[in-house]
Structures are given as C-alpha cells and as structure tokens.
C-alpha cells in the first residue's frame, strides 16, 4: 500500500522534527515575541483577556445554569483555558504548512518542525493562561489533592495529540484551501457542543451525547483532576485510543503525501 521507503522517511521526519528542539523552540518563542513586540505586558494580555472573560461569564452562566458560583467558576476557568488550548491548536494546525511556505520551499528542514513550532507556541500561551486556573482554584477550591497532579499527563496528552492533528490538518489544508474555513466554523460549533460552559451531568440521562465527543474526554483528562473529580478512566481510554489511531492514520497519510507538501504550499 505505502512503500516502506516512504514510511521510513515519514517516521524519520517525525523523529527528526521532534528532536530539533532548538529550532522549534526558538522559532515558536520568536512568534510569540513577534505578536507582542512593543506591548508592555506582552503575552500576559492573553491572561488578562481570558481572565476578564471568565470573570464576566462565570457569575452570569452560573446563574443561567442554576449553579453555585463557587463550584461553577473554577469549572469554567479550567475548562475554558484548556478548551482554548485545544481549539487554538486545531485552528492553527490548518496553517502549519501554508504559513511556512517560505521555509518549506527554500530550506530543508523536517516538516514536522513547523508542527512542533505550533504546538510549542500554544504550550507557551497555555502557560500564561494557566494563571487564571491557579487563581480560580486557589480562591474557590482551597483544599488540594495529590491527584490534581494527574492534570500534567493530561496536558501532555493534549499536546501530543496536537502533533498528529497538526500534521494531518496542515497537510489537508495545504492541498484543499477550503478546509481552514470549514475547520474554523466547526471549532466554533464544537465549543458550544462540548461541555465547557455546561457540565455533562446537566444532560441527565442523555450524558452519552457528551461521552461520544472525543474533545470532551480530551478536556476531561486535565479538568477533572484539577477539580478533584476522580474516575476519568473512560476519558483516558478514549484519549489514549485517539492518540494511537490519530498517529496511525497520520503516518499513513503523511508517508503518502509528505513529498507533495512542498508543491502544494
């Protein structure tokens, strides 16, 4: 089906790309600096805007959903910040190769470097936003459990899934220029369909609808441990499965079309 040489090259690209940490960390950080050059607070503007949004929406939606603010606000803060990471990785995935056109055409670098750059950039933004999570949790949920540390492997899982999503979406979007628009609107819809503003328990006996959504599980592996909820085993099963299937499909597609990306961008 796929010649083994192409598969070897695709795996090599992935390995070399991930290993070129000095390239993607420098370029990714540079892009963040670029966005906030000459602004006094720099990336903390993101923290402020996310914080404002959570502070404004927390009490309102808490009331709308008949929730107690002290439980709803940390739920919203955590969910929203993690959602932003997921959504922005999906959205930026569409541009990883299109946006790196100059690099791809002029110089030989593993293509995965451009994907890692996107993931790293989002990890940095998330680090800034996570201040909101800490504040909300410190204020409303003063008692900490060791199990909250399980959020870290969860976060790692999200970033790792960003790698395959970046390769796959980046590739399709380089070929079909309509896909970025489609992805953009789907992500917006997904925000409302995924339990970010609302809790899946609110669905009552229709909770299965939320459970079918893989993004819910991705969110849950970080959010649940932070909020002190245990029993995220199902979510982990889904996330691990998603990672394996995602990388498998991506490798097959990447092996087949990797050499074409330079011609498409």
């Amino acid at each position, binding site marked *: 089906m796929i010649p083994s040489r192409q598969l070897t090259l695709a795996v090599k690209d992935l390995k070399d790309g991930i290993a070129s940490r000095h390239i993607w960390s420098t370029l990714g950080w540079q892009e963040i600096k670029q966005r906030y050059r000459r602004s006094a607070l720099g990336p903390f503007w993101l923290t402020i805007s996310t914080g404002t949004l959570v502070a404004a929406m927390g009490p309102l939606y808490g009331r709308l959903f008949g929730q107690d603010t002290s439980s709803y606000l940390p739920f919203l803060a955590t969910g929203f910040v993690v959602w932003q990471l997921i959504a922005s990785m999906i959205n930026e995935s569409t541009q990883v190769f299109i946006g790196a056109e100059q690099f791809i055409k002029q*110089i030989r670098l593993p293509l995965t470097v451009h994907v890692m750059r996107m993931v790293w950039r989002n990890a940095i933004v998330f680090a800034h936003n996570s201040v909101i999570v800490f504040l909300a949790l410190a204020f409303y949920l003063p008692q900490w459990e060791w199990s909250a540390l399980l959020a870290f492997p969860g976060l790692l899982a999200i970033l790792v899934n960003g790698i395959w999503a970046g390769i796959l979406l980046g590739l399709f979007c380089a070929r079909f220029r309509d896909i970025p628009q*489609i992805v953009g609107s789907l992500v917006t819809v997904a925000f409302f369909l995924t339990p970010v503003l609302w809790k899946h328990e609110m669905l009552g006996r229709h909770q299965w609808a939320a459970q079918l959504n893989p993004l819910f599980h991705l969110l849950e592996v970080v959010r649940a441990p932070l909020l002190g909820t245990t029993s995220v085993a199902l979510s982990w099963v889904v996330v691990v499965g998603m990672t394996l299937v995602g990388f498998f499909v991506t490798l097959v597609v990447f092996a087949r079309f990797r050499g074409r990306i330079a011609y498409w961008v």
Partner: protein
Amino acid sequence: MGYIRAREVTVAFPIYGGSSRSLKKTFMRAATGGVLARDAGDRIVVKALDGLSFEIKEGDRVGLVGHNGAGKTTLLRVLAGTYEPVSGEMMVLGRVASMLSITLGMETEATGLENIYLRGIVLGLRRSEIDALVPEIIDFAELGDYIDMPMRTYSSGMAMRLAFAISTSLSADIIIMDEWLSVGDQSFSSRAQVRLRQMVDKAKILVLASHDPNLIRTNCNKVIHLDHGKIVNIETIEPPAPPG
C-alpha cells in the same frame, strides 16, 4: 565529502487554480464521475524537470544555464532538498548551503543580534556554534551599535549586509546559488565578494544558476544546459583561473 548524483529525476508541478484546489470540485468528481469529472478533474501538470541524470563530484563547479523557465530554479530546489522528485532519485551527500534566500527566517521586528540567531538556527547551526560566530558577523556587517536595534530601523543596505554576513559565515560542502550574490555599496561589495569567494573556494561543490555567460566561464568547470526541463548537454570547460 561532497557528491551529487541524479538518476532520471523528474519533477512535475500540479497547477491548481483558485477553483480546482477546492473541495467541491473533488467531491463532485467523486460523486458524478462522468462528464463533470473531465471538466473538474483534468489537472494540468507542468513537467519542470524531465528525466535528468548527471553526476557531480568533489571539486566540481557546475553552472546551470538555460532560458527562463528551463528548470534551473526547480533543479536548485531539488538539490537543496526541498522538492522531492516525483520519480527518479537524487542523492546528495554533504552539508548543503542554500543561498537561494539569504534572509529566510529573519524578522524585521527582531534586533540584529536576535536575527543572527534566528537565521543561524534556520541554517542548521546550534546556539553554541552561533555564539562563536557572532562577533565576526557583527564586525563584517559593519553594524556597530545598531546590532541591538530592531531590524526595521535598518536601511535596506544594512539589512542585506547582515543577512549576507550571516549566510556566508558558515562553511558547507555544497553551495547552491541562484545568480552570484552581490550586496551593498561599492566598498562593502568588494569585501563581500572576497568573503563569498573564500566560502565558495572552501566548498567542495558549487552549483550556480546564471544567465551571465562570463560568470559561468570564470567560475565553473562544468556546464549543464537545460531547456524545457531536459538536459540539452553537459560540457566540461576549462577549469577556472586561480583568483588574482
């Protein structure tokens, strides 16, 4: 080590217009099959390189000549490793320095010093390797204190000097150039030529695409004539006279 071998290298560009790249057409093609498919699916493919075979050995200075659109730039990009041949095989052994775009990776908002690191990393250097090159680059580019200023404050000449100084500061086995680089005003230009000459002389292989017959004659010992993506002939000419 420097060695290049091409075997039946073919490169074809699919031409996507605004419409044929769209999903709709592809779906329509899949869904309708018949008449529409012909209309939407007839992809135009331009063969930029057509079955090229050649060998370049250590010490070779190769000139690529041909009309506009003959495939020179495409071949340079295949040599640089960015375009993969559709069929055939290109083997390139050695560290390649592509001089196709000497400003790639540089940011106008970043300072000169930051740009040295950005450009250096894009060229495949480690931070520690760049550290060692920095003083010499600043000195050669004649930027002085401007090195700590954002590049957008530079004149275009200063920016080019910096880009040139960085790109020519590393050594490579194989140098790929599209026309001979020349930058800056007269005094800088002559220093730049000396530096570029040194870099080229140190390299094991030079591949230079040019429209200038004199340039090819003075620099190359082998000339590949391209026309419509095919090799018309490969001739060996007298080795370049020693400089001076």
